[in-house]
């Protein structure tokens, strides 16, 4: 499995993990009565906090992932050829982390899928308002569609890495 595939899987796992934490926390608070459907201020604060948590968790997980991957690549290279110098190891790690034209093309194509998902979510959110659902429902549909768009974009990337792109 290539670096890009591993990175994508880590991104998907991070997105799903944060979304799960968000729903477990907010649903728990909603059921206990700590947050009401018409209390938009509380929902906005909860969402802002979770966006912050998502950014922080993403950065931490990416740093850990890159450190572990670099260590495993260096060890692999050393096992394959014990005479390998550090310069060669660094070069092979840099090459593994290279984002070339195919990677960029895949990112562009998958981003389109992610945006489409987010747009559909936005329209569904508007429909929910038009059907007289509480604004908190619309906000939650919006956040799910944004996170979902990001996850779908990553899943599409994984698909293209496996199936190829023309």
């Amino acid at each position: 499995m290539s670096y890009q595939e591993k990175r994508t899987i880590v991104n998907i796992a991070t997105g799903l993990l944060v979304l799960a934490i968000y729903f477990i926390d907010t649903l728990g608070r909603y059921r206990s009565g700590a947050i009401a459907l018409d209390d938009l201020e509380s929902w906005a604060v909860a969402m802002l906090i979770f966006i912050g948590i998502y950014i922080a968790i993403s950065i931490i997980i990416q740093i850990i992932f890159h450190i572990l991957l670099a260590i495993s690549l260096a060890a692999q290279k050393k096992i394959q050829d014990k005479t390998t110098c550090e310069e060669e190891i660094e070069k092979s790690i840099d090459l593994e982390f290279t984002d070339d034209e195919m990677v960029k093309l895949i990112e562009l194509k998958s981003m389109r899928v992610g945006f489409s998902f987010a747009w559909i979510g936005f329209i569904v959110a508007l429909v929910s308002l038009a059907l007289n659902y509480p604004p908190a429902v619309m906000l939650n549909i919006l956040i799910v569609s944004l996170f979902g768009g990001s996850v779908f974009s990553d899943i599409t990337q994984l698909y293209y890495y496996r199936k190829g792109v023309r």
Partner: protein
Amino acid sequence: MAKEIVITNNIRKLRFFANEMTQQELAEKAGASRQTIIAIEAGKYSPSLEMAFRIAEAFGVKIDEVFGYEIKEES
């Protein structure tokens, strides 16, 4: 009936004749990721003209010795 152009390549054969050059070595020489070389070799990705020239350069051959094409009728 529409015609589809399928890009073919001889990368596996050229690697064999280049002293069994690994995909990693080719990636290093062509300035691409190993993932991309694997995809090109398997026919899952059609490289840009620039990348195609860089791969040919890595083998020290002309581009038409690395890449070719087939025309397929689309049904």
